[in-house]
């Protein structure tokens, strides 16, 4: 290469080339936004129109590669399971290569990819992990045309859940495959036995829970009740019947200062000032203290009688308690009009996918009833389909034994996170500091005033409509 540079090209030209290359690099950065505004365009007709390579079902036989991004919460177990699923799919459709992409920090990973117009063909969508923001950015291509033309049967899914994953015109965006409840009340049977109290039951009222929690507390040693993580004060507010927004899906206004909202926090504040609840429990029993572990480690160490947590925590508790005590769980009690906070998720087709038909095919494969059943057998997620609940979860001996019953109770009055870009900055970023400030204040604050002020701030900061 030395001689070439030596004489052949005048240096000014070489310098020019360098500058042009630089500018080109800069220009690429500024352009390339053609994908971003196409969200409103109607989805094209589902089945590919007869190209020469069509097979019988209208899907092309050409070599395609589809990328599938999914939230990874279960580590290597889930990665192995998903890889195996992909291999099965490729075995059935040899022209399709499936590239599975596990993601642990979903929003931070996927939202920038959607914004830059280059995201995987199949996208996971979870109500508590940026599904609302993804919809706000038109990440999903509606699968309704496929459903309509194929006559795909959705009757097994709970209706409310499908509505939550549809656009305002009832076009389905994501095929839901899992629903987790946050209203799961784990209890330590040994501590109840020692205190001579009856175990919690599905007929419990919120007051029963509070009475038992007080009875089971021993100052600085044992806590009657705990939260698995701090944000569950929101689940607690919903238990009382507090409604966070005017519409649970397409919210246009914040209403978390409405009826029962302040009441719920007043009760909670009282309990924590009495020492029935300790917010800093987890770190004291070997937990690293981040995320879910905050209350779980304290419960597993036998220092908490009842723990509000998610349906998925049972195996962790079983592992970490090492059989030192027996535990079970029920759905946490609800006041009149109380709702259950759910976290539902499923898979949908990326708006910018080059192979939407194959992407939909893969969505059906992993999020349809068979896929959900395979997941259930693997112990991943929790199917919202009643038949699978009965056949897999209810038939299983894995603790806690009534996981299936709880899930069914939850299906009816479950509420999920509202949609839209504004919800996270408007709700989460405002209410959490306000509530935290109230709990750590020297004396109990006027909770109604705290919430009124927060709602005002929410409306200013991130108006919903």
């Amino acid at each position, binding site marked *: 290469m030395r001689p070439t540079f030596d004489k052949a090209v005048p240096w000014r030209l070489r310098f020019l080339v360098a500058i042009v290359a630089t500018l080109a690099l800069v220009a690429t950065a500024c352009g390339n936004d053609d994908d971003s505004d196409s969200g409103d365009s109607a989805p094209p007709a589902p089945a590919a129109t007869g190209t020469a390579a069509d097979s019988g079902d209208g899907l092309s036989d050409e070599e395609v590669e589809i990328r599938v991004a999914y939230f990874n919460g279960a580590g290597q177990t889930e990665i192995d399971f998903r890889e195996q699923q992909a291999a099965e799919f490729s075995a059935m459709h040899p022209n399709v290569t499936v590239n599975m992409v596990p993601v642990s920090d979903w929003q931070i990973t996927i939202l920038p*990819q959607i914004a830059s117009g280059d995201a995987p063909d199949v996208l996971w969508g979870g109500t508590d992990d940026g599904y609302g923001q993804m919809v706000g950015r038109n990440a999903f291509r509606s699968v309704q045309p496929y459903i309509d033309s194929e006559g795909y049967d959705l009757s097994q899914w709970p209706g409310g859940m499908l509505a939550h994953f549809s656009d305002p015109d009832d076009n389905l965006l994501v095929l839901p495959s899992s629903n987790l409840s946050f209203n799961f009340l784990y209890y330590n049977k040994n501590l109840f036995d020692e205190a001579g109290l009856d175990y919690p039951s599905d007929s419990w009222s919120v007051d029963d829970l509070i009475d038992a929690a007080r009875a089971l507390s021993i100052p600085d040693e044992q806590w009657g009740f705990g939260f698995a993580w701090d944000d569950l004060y929101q689940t607690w507010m919903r238990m009382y019947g507090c409604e966070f927004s005017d519409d649970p899906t397409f919210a246009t206004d914040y209403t978390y200062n409405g009826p029962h909202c302040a009441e719920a926090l007043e009760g909670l504040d009282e309990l924590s000032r009495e020492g029935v609840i300790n917010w800093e429990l987890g770190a004291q029993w070997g937990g690293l203290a981040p995320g879910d572990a905050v209350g779980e480690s304290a419960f597993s160490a036998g220092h908490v009688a009842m723990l509000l947590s998610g349906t998925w925590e049972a195996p962790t508790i079983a592992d970490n308690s090492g059989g030192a005590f027996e535990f079970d769980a029920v759905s946490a009690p609800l006041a009149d009009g109380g709702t259950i906070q759910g976290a539902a998720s499923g898979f949908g087709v990326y708006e910018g996918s080059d192979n939407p038909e194959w992407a939909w095919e893969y969505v059906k494969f992993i999020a349809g009833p068979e896929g959900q059943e395979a997941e259930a057998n693997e112990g991943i997620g929790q199917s919202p389909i009643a038949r699978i609940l009965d056949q897999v979860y209810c038939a299983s001996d894995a603790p806690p034994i009534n996981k299936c019953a709880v899930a069914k109770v939850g299906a009816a009055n479950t509420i999920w996170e509202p949609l839209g870009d504004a919800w996270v900055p408007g709700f989460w970023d405002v209410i959490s500091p306000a509530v935290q400030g109230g709990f750590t204040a020297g004396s109990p604050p006027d909770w109604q005033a705290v919430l009124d002020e927060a709602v005002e701030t929410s409306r200013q900061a991130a108006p919903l409509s």
Partner: protein
Amino acid sequence: MGAGTRTAHSPRPGARHGLRASGWRASPRVARRIALYAVLIGLSFLFALPFLWQFSAAFKTNAEIIQPGLNLIPDSLRLENFNEALNAVPFDLWFYNSLFIAVLGTIGATLSSAFCAYGFAVLRARGSSLCFGLALITIFIPFEALLIPEFILFSRLGWLNSPLPLILPWCFGGGAFNIFLMRQFFKGLPRDLVDAARLDGASEFRIFWQIMLPLTVPALTVVAVFHFIYLWNDFLRPLVYLQDLNSTTLPVGLSGFVSRFSRDWSTLMAGSVMALLPIIALFAVAQRFIVRGINLSGIKR
């Protein structure tokens, strides 16, 4: 290593003698020495303690870890921890990604900075000091200020979750600091070498590649070692660019590990020890280069 060391290292024959003769009397001197060693041993133990504890915890059971007391010697060497760490997360993949980025980034930065530094050090041209001045200024720009446009650039190029954003920038100049360091080394080399080679008709490429570069191997090593360590520990950049679990690096993967296995101390400690080992091994092998690098770039009179 030539003139570069000569100017910077300058051993001082008088130093030892000078200190010895600094007029301390015998018995307080002994007491002082004992106190000095006691303090040093105590402090270095404190500094090393987190590592010692981490290494011992990597072989313990969870129950043993949360027992009170120092217990630096584990009851038994529980090697399953390492197995569990490898099986619980895509550890091998992260390790490979880290290594890939650190190795290629180091090669790119080292060669590229040497190349540019040769220009700055040996070749004379109008505008040379202006360019060098600009290079100096970039050292003081915090990376955080450049992060957002850089992120937009790479995301628009579709390079998220690819190693390119972490390697490619280093191949263009290798960072102003490294150019700096290499330039100093080149300046220390005898200029006659260049002039003689030119008289023989060698092109500048040839002079750089065949004559000058081999003489700067010690300097290249210093740059490479520092840069490798920097890339291996780098957190913010991979955190921003490599989010999916298949393409991320060890530090980012481990940071997610912390919350996922929040009670599983033994696995976490085993995993973090495996992440530490390469860098500690490199440090053990290359320590003299690091110390030399500090001394060479040190503020000398």
